[in-house]
């Protein structure tokens, strides 16, 4: 599959502060590419560099096989973006807002085109209403319409679910899936709501403090080997001591009282051995959601290295 975005050793410094450091990643055609990281990890800075809003200190960005710096207009003509909150012109109607940005994208604008886009995001009935009167969800949908109106190959969404209610988040998720599966778009989506990414991304990168922690397909990264198991007992201290002297020691999470990262298939054996060791279990919870994985990566450097290798 062809690489749509190829980022190599990208860096951005603000004085002594390094926002992004030697970041390299690849987004392939048709990917829904999740860009994950905690707040301040460098996601937005990277995305703004992809859109030429911020100039990199070092590194290169190639999009559609062309160097971004030298083919900016050509690349942006095929790119649509929603960057954080899509704050539009509040004193203009949804139709006028869309019309302005469509014209700026360099396409021929017709009433039908604009109304079709508004219909796609469910705003055709309120096309004449001023953006100032829109809810956050409606603004977000209008932002999506602005990003899609010129039929881009690549869509970049920076925290698109910010400020949305649960229904809005579900609608956004469905729209992204539709864009990818039905319309064949390549989507880059950044978020700190990892459960959202887990449901829609095909590939993802996790960054922390401006550096890549891991990159790969979501299926790979959600490998059962990365299951987190939380145990509650009547005597946690004694149980931990027991585990530390057993083969389970290697799976113990250092900072958590009784949490292990292990292959899900081994959980029954663990329970059996704890019961055999006279441990009175109150609960055993296992999960391998991306959120747990993400948290383990970004809070436990030792595991980061293990997975990255």
């Amino acid at each position, binding site marked *: 599959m062809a690489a749509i975005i190829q980022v190599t050793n990208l860096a951005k410094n603000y004085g002594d502060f390094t926002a992004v450091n030697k970041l390299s990643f690849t987004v392939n055609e048709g990917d829904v590419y999740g860009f994950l990281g905690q707040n301040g990890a460098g996601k937005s800075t990277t995305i*703004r560099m992809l859109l030429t*809003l*911020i*100039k990199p200190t070092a590194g290169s960005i190639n999009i559609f096989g062309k160097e971004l710096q030298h083919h900016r*207009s050509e690349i942006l003509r095929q790119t649509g973006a929603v960057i954080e909150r899509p704050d*539009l012109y509040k*004193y203009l109607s949804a139709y*006028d807002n869309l019309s*302005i940005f469509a*014209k700026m994208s360099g396409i021929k604008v017709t009433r039908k085109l604009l109304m079709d886009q508004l219909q796609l995001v469910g705003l055709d009935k309120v096309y004449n209403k001023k953006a100032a009167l829109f809810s956050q969800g409606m603004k977000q949908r209008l932002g999506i319409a602005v990003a899609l109106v010129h039929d881009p190959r690549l869509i970049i969404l920076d925290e698109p679910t910010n400020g949305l209610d649960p229904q809005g988040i579900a609608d956004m998720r469905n729209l992204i899936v539709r864009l990818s599966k039905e319309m064949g778009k390549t989507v880059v989506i950044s978020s700190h709501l990892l459960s959202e990414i887990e449901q829609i991304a095909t590939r993802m990168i996790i960054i922390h403090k401006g550096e890549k922690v891991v990159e790969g397909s979501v299926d790979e990264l959600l490998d059962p080997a990365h299951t987190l198991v939380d145990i509650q007992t009547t005597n946690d201290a004694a149980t931990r001591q027991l585990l530390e002297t057993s083969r389970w020691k290697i799976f113990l999470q250092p900072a958590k009282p009784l949490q292990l990262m292990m292959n899900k298939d081994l959980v029954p054996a663990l329970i059996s051995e704890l019961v055999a060791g006279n441990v009175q279990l109150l609960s055993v919870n296992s999960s391998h959601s991306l959120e747990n994985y993400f948290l383990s990566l970004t809070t436990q450097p030792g595991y980061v290295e293990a997975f990255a290798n």
Partner: protein
Amino acid sequence: MWRLLQIELFKISKRPRTYIAFIAIAAIVSIFQFAFKADGQSYMDLMMQSAKEEFTFDRVQAINGYFMCYIILNTLLIQVPILVALIAADSISGEANMGTLRLLLSKPVSRTQLIIVKFAAATIFTVFLLLWMAVTALLLSIVIFGTGDMLVFRTKGEDSQIMLITQDDVMWRYYAAFAYATVALTVIAALSLLLSIFAENSIGPIIATVCIVIVCTIISNINVPVIDRNIKPFLFTSYLVGWKGFFYIGTRPDGSTIKGSLENWPAIRKSLLILLAHIGVIVGASVLVFRRKDILS
């Protein structure tokens, strides 16, 4: 570029703030016209007292539309920079404040194009503002007060001087004066645009523009030789009122005025060139700064 400019003008036309300037001008002009209609004679008496030379004329006829416009422009062109700053200082900072700047710049539009278009839009707004002044201060005054020969009171050093411009020699001077004022106010628009690049809301650049104009105007009016020589020639505020030069008519040795003449055209031309140079430098600086700016808003 034309498409971008159309978009910019459309946005300006849709903003309620745009019309504040037009309403303010109409209000100020109306107050002047009402005051002069009610008691213009007192003003004339006051001005005649300060004039050194003897001058005989019909004081009622002297308050005509041409004279009124001159009086209004004398006052209003000092305040109009604030009205120009209201729109121009919002050019970039307003977009940053609304969050639309990042959206604009993620479109296939170059930053240089955007600055030039913003500047062009601010200039067109300035032209419309002056056209509105021409309609209200000149045309409306002509309707209310009629036409006639125009009196110009002038302070030259410690002396006051009265000049008479014949009715058929006035209108071209107004065209030229409004054109000059457009250039002068465009410097303010360019300055506001430059300042707006550094801010994320429009209040800061508006206040900064007004402060710069006030400080520079004060310096321009300080009559100290060292400032006259070394600072004033470089301040744009020294040339803002250069439009008055079009009403300083040339005179013969016997003191009679020469129709169609200007007292000092080279000085006006020099002032215009200096203002244009200011515009070039400030817009150039705006492009340079904006091209390097990281958009973090």
